[in-house]
């Protein structure tokens, strides 16, 4: 038996907060994508921790599904960033504000 489930949760919460801060504070879209990945993986960690604690494999299946979705999302996100770069648009999320009301 490894460490208690609470360690996993605390680690997961720390990673999630780090990712969330990164999404909110950083301006480079590449870093924002990385932070998003961190958040997703924090969630995966929590799922797996609970799955192990409760002896239920459903959490692991969920984690696999999240990984698949995350991979697709990264593909789309990187594609967008490449498209931005090609069009010589600034790689700064604060300056991409054409949806201002």
């Amino acid at each position, binding site marked *: 038996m490894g460490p208690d489930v609470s360690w996993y949760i605390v680690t997961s919460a720390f990673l999630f907060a780090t990712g969330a801060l990164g*999404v*909110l504070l950083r301006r480079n879209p590449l870093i*924002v994508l990385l932070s998003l990945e961190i958040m997703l993986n924090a969630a995966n960690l929590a799922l797996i921790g609970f799955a192990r604690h409760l002896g239920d494999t459903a959490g692991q299946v969920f984690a696999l599904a999240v990984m698949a979705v995350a991979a697709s999302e990264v593909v789309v996100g990187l594609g967008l960033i490449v498209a931005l770069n090609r069009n010589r648009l600034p790689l700064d999320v604060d300056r991409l*504000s054409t949806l201002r*009301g």
Partner: protein
Amino acid sequence: MIAASWITLLAPLGAAALITLGGTWITRRQAGYLATLSVLVSFVTALIAFFELLNEHPEERSHTSTLWTWLTAGDLQVGLRILVDPLSIFMMLVVSGVGFLIVAYSIGYMDGEDEERRFFAYMSLFVFSMLLLVQSGDLLILLAGWGLVGLCSYLLIGYYQERPEAIAAAKKAFIMNAFGDATMVLALFLVLQRLGTLEYGGVFAGIDGIGGWAITLISLGLLGGAVAKSAQIPLQTWLPDAMEGPTPVSALIHAATMVTAGVYMLVRLNPIFEQTPGIQKLAAGLGALTLLVAGLIALVQVDIKRVIAYSTMSQIGYMFVGAGMTAYPNAMFHLMTHAFFKALLFLGAGIVIHALLNEQDMRKMGGLGRTLPRTYAVMLVGALALAGIPPLSGFFSKDPLIASLLDAGGYGVLLWLACLVGTFLTGLYAFRLIFIVFGGEPSPYAREHLHRPGTTMPALWMAWTVGALAVLAAFGGWIQFSPFWTPITDFLEPVAAPGIEPSGMQELWTSILAVALGLAGILLAWAVFSARRVEVPRPAAIQRLLEEKFYFDTAYDYAFYRPASWIAAAAIRFVEGPIISGSIRELSEGTRLLATRVSGLETGLLRTYALALGGGAALLALVFLAVRA
């Protein structure tokens, strides 16, 4: 007999449907022939039914027939039920007989109009409605017929759609009649609530159990319908305006049949009205008032058709007096002779109007007696019959009606006096028309515009129908000469037994007085309007009072129309403007303001959205936890 009665009822409806559906497949003239033929079929079948009825014992002459159940509501079932009894047969004969002559006349009169098919479809529909009204065996069917004749009269008065006055007159007639329909409907609701049935038999059987204020209201409501339909005071103002319609319409609807529907109802529903003698006296009083007022107004009218229209109101006033004072057979007899001579007068006036190229103003007429001698002769017959001069039909019907009033006590004597004054007025206004239009030298207008009716087909149709009516107006009254022979009174006895009957002496003296007064009226008319031209004092105030029709229209204008338009204007100013339009404007402005505020939240910055999402989720989680705890 039942089958014949159904054919009588449905033949004109079939013609109306055929003409409407046939469209241009039916030529204009065929439409006229079709309508005429259908009404002739009605008349012939009504005759067959009449003779079959005559073969039966007088006590058994009442048959009902239900085609199907028309509507069911709870315990109430109303079938399409007709009643065949002496009274309805009598009315069927008058309506289809006189109606046939008038529709046949229309073939000539309407020749060359643009929309003859529409006209004849309406005419057939009208005859059907009127037959439905008189043949109904149920108060609801009566009401249906009542409403349908109102509709047809609206359609026919407004036949010349391009004339604003015709449309206004049509609307006026419809609204006035709708008022009467409404009071009738209220009365029927009360009957239904008290008795649970609207069928004549059931209603008459249970009516004396109602009593109290309910029966008074029922009678009053029914009387309202009769007064509106028969153009009696205070709902009379629509009839003179209704002369905007084509002349055969004036003859058919506004003289011979529709306006007498009120009299028919007073007689048909006599078991109801007899429960409330006060309302009957009211009906008679209104009739007497109308016959005097209309007779006076007719003295100053200048439109030839309006004179005859006021005369119609006046004559129906006589019938109301008779029906109100329970002299039912006399009222019905006068209804019949009136249909003959009034249709004759209208159709004769139609020939005059045609000959003068649609001129109706009597001031432009004059001296037509020489150029239109045959028209002059038939109009003279009609006017003499109207004035009640023997041996023409009006004498036989009007005088017994007046004489019977003497049998009704003090109030009856009062009405008797009013009726006698009325006969004087009748002679005066009838012969004022005759002398102005036909007497003297031809007027300049007449000399210039007269075109003599030739022997073309349309002129012949007009001529033979008017001739037939002239024969009826002259000799139709000989059917009954009370007290010597009284077949009509005997025939109607099982349905409407008279409550008052004059003695022989009363009849004699009344007849002498009435004829003398009628002759005096004619003499005065001759003195004033013919060769002598005696100057009579015409006080300006009275002249004006009569020309303004006793200010009824003006009074209604002030009492109803003006307040209504004031209320409407006030509603526009104080409700429509500030509240309805204002609220809509403010709602839209408020929405726009809110939208600009809300759009400020859309910063376009991804992080604010993410923060809002995350913050919202966190808030929800907190709320969830707080509720759990």
